């Protein structure tokens, strides 16, 4: 029993937790931006799959790692454009279009994968991002190793939390994004196009989701597998609610979730097979549902979330 507690005080546990949190941070920020602008993006799971493949494939074809990240982001934006075109100006059901985009992005990814690599049995590997210890900071006691011996993409995730929070709350653009999610009529009255702001937000958010997917193939692992996103996108949707649509709280939620995930993996090894391993694997999903129940009562959804906007409509 002692061992189960000791895990929490090992640096390797927290290094793993931060690594597991990284793709969730990207994708949760992405979903948060979409929802703040009033658009629920259920394309997240598929967009992460497409991003995971696009980034990895770019590197596999000889591109460098950052080009891979850029390509993943562009692929994400393309799906964001599709999603937002159908849901914003055409006002189609965000649930149906989101599921459609997930199915399309996933199946297109698998199709292209099979086309490009027809006969492979074991997925080819790339040289992924390497850990890059921050000089000085990585030697800090307690947090140094966990926070500052990560790969550059993890640092980017943390920087983006600050950038998104600053952008949403301190810039006119951020104000416009939040306003179209709360009171689009008032934004239109200011002479700003609700359609443009919402579409832009969904495209930017989708780009982040795709980078979240790319983290898995280019930083956490070094190859692309089928079903590799495995529900992470849906977890991120829960994290946005858990974080009450605020970047800082969402970051906290992602780290808590990831710590729990890292912990269950270690408990699994510790339990020595007495409890079926599937029980441990279920815990993160069950925890997400539990978190939703806990926050549901005081969740304040953006008022215009899932409400299509028509110019001149009251």
């Amino acid at each position, binding site marked *: 029993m002692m061992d189960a507690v000791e895990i929490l005080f090992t640096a390797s546990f927290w290094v793993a937790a931060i690594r597991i949190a990284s793709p969730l941070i990207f994708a949760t920020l992405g979903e948060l931006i979409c929802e703040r602008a009033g658009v629920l993006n*259920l394309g997240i799971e598929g967009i992460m799959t497409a991003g995971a493949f696009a980034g990895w494939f770019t590197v596999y074809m000889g591109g460098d790692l950052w080009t891979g990240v850029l390509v993943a982001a562009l692929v994400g934006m393309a799906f964001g454009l*599709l999603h937002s075109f*159908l849901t914003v*100006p*055409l*006002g*189609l*059901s965000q*649930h*149906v*279009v989101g*599921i*459609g*985009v997930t*199915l*399309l992005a*996933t*199946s*297109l990814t*698998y*199709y292209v994968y*099979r*086309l490009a690599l*027809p006969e492979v049995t074991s997925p080819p590997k790339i040289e992924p991002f390497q850990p890059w210890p921050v000089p000085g900071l990585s030697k800090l006691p307690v947090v140094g190793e966990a926070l500052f011996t990560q790969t550059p993409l993890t640092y980017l995730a943390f920087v983006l939390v600050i950038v998104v929070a600053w952008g949403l709350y301190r810039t006119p653009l951020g104000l416009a994004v939040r306003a179209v999610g709360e009171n689009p009529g008032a934004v239109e009255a200011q002479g700003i196009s609700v*359609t443009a702001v919402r579409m832009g937000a969904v495209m930017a958010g989708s780009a982040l989701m795709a980078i979240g997917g790319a983290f898995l193939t280019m930083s956490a692992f070094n190859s692309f597998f089928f079903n590799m996103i*495995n*529900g992470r996108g*849906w*977890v991120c*949707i*829960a994290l946005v*609610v858990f974080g009450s649509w605020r970047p800082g709280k969402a970051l906290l939620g992602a780290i808590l979730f990831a710590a729990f995930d890292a912990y269950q993996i270690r408990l699994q090894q510790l339990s020595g097979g007495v409890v*079926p391993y*599937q*029980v441990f*694997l*279920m815990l993160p*999903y*069950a925890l*997400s*549902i539990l978190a*939703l*129940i806990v926050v*549901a*009562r005081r*969740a304040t959804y953006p008022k215009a979330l899932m409400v299509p906007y*028509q*110019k*001149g409509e009251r």
Partner: protein
Amino acid sequence: MRLEPKPAPSLAMSILYPVVAIVVTFIIAGVLVMLADANPFSVFRLVLKGAAGSQFAILETLTRATPLIFTGLAVAVAFRAKLWNIGAEAQLYMGAIITVVLGTGALPLPAIILVPLVMLAALIGGALLLAGPAWLKLRFGVDEVVTTLLLNFIVLLFVSMLLEGVLKDPMALGWPQSPKIIAEAQLPRVITGKRLHYGFVIAVALAIGLWFVMKKTVLGYEMRAVGHNAEAARFLGMPVNGVLMKTALLSGGIAALGGFSEVAGLKGSLTLDLSPGFGYTGIVVAMLAMLNPIGVVFSAIFVAGIFVGAAAMSRTAGVPSYIADVMVATSLLTMVTAIMLSRYRVKWK
């Protein structure tokens, strides 16, 4: 750009728009086929041949359509009341689990009693599985989209646990698989020696029954009213929460019957690959049918034909069979767009 409602489309128009949607889907798929260095026309001919070119192909398509009718109906019923059940996959597996638990000899009963009993048990299991998220939605305001999606992963892990534990077939070497159900629990085949089974007949009967429920009963009227405008329905004194709960029980139960039908009619045992995403494809099936239960039968056969045909085509033409998944997803998006365009006029301004 803005949308203006059009007068109700004529019959010709309401057929033309969906047809255009399917044509656009085939054009997009054709471009993807060309990326694979294949001729789209010969590939589509092979798909058609694989789906409907022989008695074997047709029976295979109908067999594959069977679970899709169940999940499509489950989604159609739920979406009609704007209950976003994305968990038909989990409910289907729940039905399959119950079928295996009760059907492998635990109940030594004759087929005439055992089959309906197992079917009812599966129905209840699936109903209860969706009742959970529905209750959380009504009681705490928890969004059912995320809870039903996450339950898909939990239930699949649960199946994996059972197959490596209490439901493991001691005779199956290595591969996680449950024991076969007994003969008395099996659904008969429609034609002896062929794979098409009575699950298909049940599915079609259920579709007709649901069409009746949706069109002619108070519950159907209430479900449509709640889906159309829950606030107005509440204002008119409708028991909105009760209607949503009934919808959830119905939807979850129907999806579970899909799992029952696959095990009792076709596979005989439970495996982790019992459903290659029937629950998710059910969403496409329901939307293509515009949530009409009778339409679900036809859209399920159409979607199943694409899958069966593409699998056959892929073996000879070398185009990855994932083209089927792409076509199905594309048809969903083109179809909802087409339906919208048939009802609204787009003004570019």
